[in-house]
């Protein structure tokens, strides 16, 4: 039983044992780890097959990912890692929360951009920006209060808008029976085109400039504070950790969370148990989609208030899609999502350095996609894992033990 003892200890170290499905299946934690490991191996094969040195490429990838301390540029890389991770953790939490309620919110992408554009709007909109600008001057050395309030308003408005956008899909699902995957995919593209082909090139751009400039810049009071000065690191990582804690609290310490999980556990078998218990399923699903969208929008507001300070015309899709990977690798547990988000953030940070070895920075997409693919194949991964464990056990232990793993 040495393997499962180790697994239990490992789980306990992260405080996620004896909860929900983990108690039944200690393999849960190994599936994402093995998937990522296999994905990294496949990535190496891809590099080797194209006649390049995989070890040099991975040395660059992980050396400059910000994970390993030391080196001249480490502080900057570490900051970049955390900035990127904050956005991926936000979208990852969004997808993970919906998963817990048995819903596949593939629309974190659209909700992310809705949050971003609304945060931009409240960042530059004159009535708000001028009020807080005047407040900043009036408060003197307490000017940070104005910064705090303005930032909070932008983020909250963004989250409300993103939540509302996701709730549209929730409404269509609950009231009209529109499949949540299809609904959120369609809303993704509606949001994307409305924002990038209308708002960000028309009504929200400075009139004197060409359409290539992006929107107005947000006021200084709306920008997130920087917390590690020579670098760009800002408070987004702290906020997202808070959001992760809030998600965990919602799921495991509140009635709403309990009901959401009850719906999620029975989503494939008709949700009769929660219905019999008197849970208002439609209402909970609407709330769940709202929370989920708000989390994705939080990431969108980080993108604007912490990084771009305007809605740029160069924005490209991908944060929400990555969030799906983050949620899957993190097994939809808030802590897992944080770790997975940090890992993906590290990959993305290090991938820019791989260009030295002639490897495009989209290489990290290959790893992510492969990891998600292996998670989709988890039945096979589990099957072979159990087989390997069984073979080892029959060699060392008497066969009576076999029942425990099956």
């Amino acid at each position, binding site marked *: 039983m040495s393997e499962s003892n180790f697994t239990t200890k490992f789980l306990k170290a992260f405080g996620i044992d004896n909860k929900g499905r983990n108690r039944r299946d200690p393999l849960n934690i190994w599936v994402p780890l093995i998937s990522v490991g296999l994905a990294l191996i496949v990535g190496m094969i891809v590099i080797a097959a194209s006649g390049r040195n995989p070890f040099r490429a991975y040395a660059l990838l992980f050396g400059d990912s910000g994970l390993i301390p030391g080196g001249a540029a480490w502080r900057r890389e570490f900051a970049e890692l955390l900035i990127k991770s904050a956005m991926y953790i936000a979208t990852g939490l969004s997808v993970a929360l919906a998963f817990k309620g048995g819903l596949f919110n593939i629309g974190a992408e659209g909700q992310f951009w809705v949050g971003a554009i609304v945060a931009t709007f409240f960042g530059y909109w004159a009535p708000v920006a001028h009020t807080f600008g005047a407040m900043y001057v009036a408060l003197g050395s307490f000017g940070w209060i104005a910064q705090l309030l303005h930032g909070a308003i932008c983020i909250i408005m963004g989250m409300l808008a993103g939540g509302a956008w996701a709730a549209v899909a929730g409404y*269509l699902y609950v009231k009209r029976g*529109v499949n949540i995957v*299809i609904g959120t995919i*369609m809303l993704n593209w509606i949001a994307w085109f409305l924002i990038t082909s209308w708002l960000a090139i028309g009504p929200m751009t400075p009139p004197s400039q060409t359409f290539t400039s992006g929107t107005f810049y947000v006021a200084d009071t709306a920008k997130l504070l920087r917390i590690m000065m020579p670098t760009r690191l800002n408070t987004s990582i702290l906020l997202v950790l808070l959001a992760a804690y809030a998600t965990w609290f919602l799921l495991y310490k509140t009635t709403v969370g309990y009901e959401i999980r009850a719906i999620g556990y029975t989503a494939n078998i008709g949700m009769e148990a929660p219905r019999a218990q008197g849970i208002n399923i439609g209402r909970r699903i609407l709330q769940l989609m709202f929370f989920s969208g708000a989390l994705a929008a939080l990431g969108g507001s980080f993108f604007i208030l912490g990084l771009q300070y305007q809605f740029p015309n160069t924005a490209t899709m*991908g944060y929400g899609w990555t969030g799906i990977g983050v949620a899957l690798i993190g097994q939809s547990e808030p802590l897992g999502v944080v770790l997975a988000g940090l890992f993906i953030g590290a990959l993305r940070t290090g991938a820019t350095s791989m260009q030295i070895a002639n490897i495009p920075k*989209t290489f*990290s997409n290959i790893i992510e*996609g492969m990891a998600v693919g292996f998670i989709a194949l988890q039945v*096979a991964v589990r099957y072979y894992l159990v087989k390997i464990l069984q073979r080892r056990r029959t060699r060392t232990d008497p066969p009576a033990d076999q029942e425990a793993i099956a």
Partner: protein
Amino acid sequence: MNILQINLTIAQMLDYTMPILFAALCGVLSESAGVVNIGLDGIMRFGAFFGLLGAFFSHSPWIGLLFGIAIGCLVGALHAFITIRWNGDQTVSGTAINVIAVGLMTYLLEYVFSTTGYSPQLQNYFGAQAYRVHLPFLAKIPLLGAFSNLSFMIWFGFICTVLMHVLLYHTVLGLRIRTCGENPKAATTLGINVFRIRWFAVVAGAALAGIGGATLSISSFSGFSDSMPNGVGFIGLAAMIFGKWTPFGALGAALLFGTGQIVQSIIAVTGIAPKLAPGLTLILPYVLTLAVLAGFVGKSVAPAADGLPYYKEQR
């Protein structure tokens, strides 16, 4: 606008339509058998790059088309392996294919051609005069004149639609495919091998998506660009739903969405309506699809067992 311009516009509209149509047909076939394939955008990206690769090195678009079909089958087999052999989540598998396609095609573009953004342009592609299907007797007739000088892929799209309709509604295999999508348990009772039928539907469907991708890079355009397919796969998904999961419905929806695209580019080029933002026309396919799904305009219903893995032992 004179008659020549109208003909040209119609031909251009068909160029926009065909990739959407092939993607939609992929969806129709695979979802009729009960397997959701949201990875078709990624499969199209594979098809677009490998189609170009074949056409570029053989100097013949026909080889490019074969490459597109082959890579489509291959990626489709991967999707089938994950979702049918191992009952993996179909949406997760599709997402994986989309994400891998983004990374891998950029990687291969850089590796094969040492360029970023765009591949070299093709001389021999289906859009070139030498490879067009010439029907001179149509040229004099108004409106039908547009069909006198089309790319082969456009006719191929129409043919595939008809073939798909015949396959699904007039053959035994088609009946079996639809049974697997509606009620796999009943299909098993009748002695149909649900897994084999689903494998066929997914792989053949993915081949169509591969053709759709190749259509983009070796017919509608004469090269691969890194932004391909630019969401065409998802418009195809929308067209499949808007067409109520039928081949001719998909054709109608693809034509409608293709017309939307051409209207948008006419507005952009001629500046007829400068106040109308492009975003407002671009969202049209998705809004219409949601409206149809929600039952505001007609009602579109998916096959009953769509998206559900099939377990033989489960009751």
